[in-house]
């Protein structure tokens, strides 16, 4: 695969608060209900990865996202 320049999508979109209710955004970082995409692959910066992982865990608790691969 050709090397692409990765960038933090949240930084370029200027997202300051990642909401657990926004399942559509979150699910792009949890492919098919499996593990969260690591930073080295998705290119998300550390600040946003922290917020993202918290939001994903909150969404999982409320059964908006699954814990196990479907």
């Amino acid at each position: 695969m050709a090397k692409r320049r990765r960038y933090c999508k949240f930084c370029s979109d200027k997202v300051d608060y990642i909401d657990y209710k926004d399942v559509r955004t979150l699910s792009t970082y949890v492919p098919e209900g499996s593990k969260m995409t690591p930073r080295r692959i998705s290119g998300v910066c550390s600040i946003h990865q922290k917020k993202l992982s918290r939001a994903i865990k909150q969404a999982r608790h409320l059964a908006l996202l699954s814990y196990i691969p479907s």
Partner: protein
Amino acid sequence: MRKYEVAVVLAPTLTEEEVDQSIETFQEIAKEKEAQVANVDNWGKRNLAYPINKHTEGIYVILTLEESNAESVAELERRFKMTESVIRFLTIRVDLNLKRAEKIKSRRDSKKRLNTLSEDNNETQTVSVAVED
């Protein structure tokens, strides 16, 4: 003033009337503890990502509360634990997050202003050099 977001997942076996009724009781509990209910968002029935207590669907309700202490939230959570029709709940304090987001935003805006200012300075400098030549 603190701002809380209380998300509740209710069992799908409840009828619409029962859902409205339970939402009202939640609001009453909050008001009793001197909290203001800023917003009530009823998402209706949604599929759960995984079964909880053999339910495959859930009714999502999101309450936004404003209060000066955590009393109403504590009371609500105590009630949720006792109520069988509540299958999941999650409380989040959002005012700090929103405040932080605003701070970052203002910092970014001021940075942008600085950048445009320095660009203007550069332009004036080049102009003055041209005059000297």
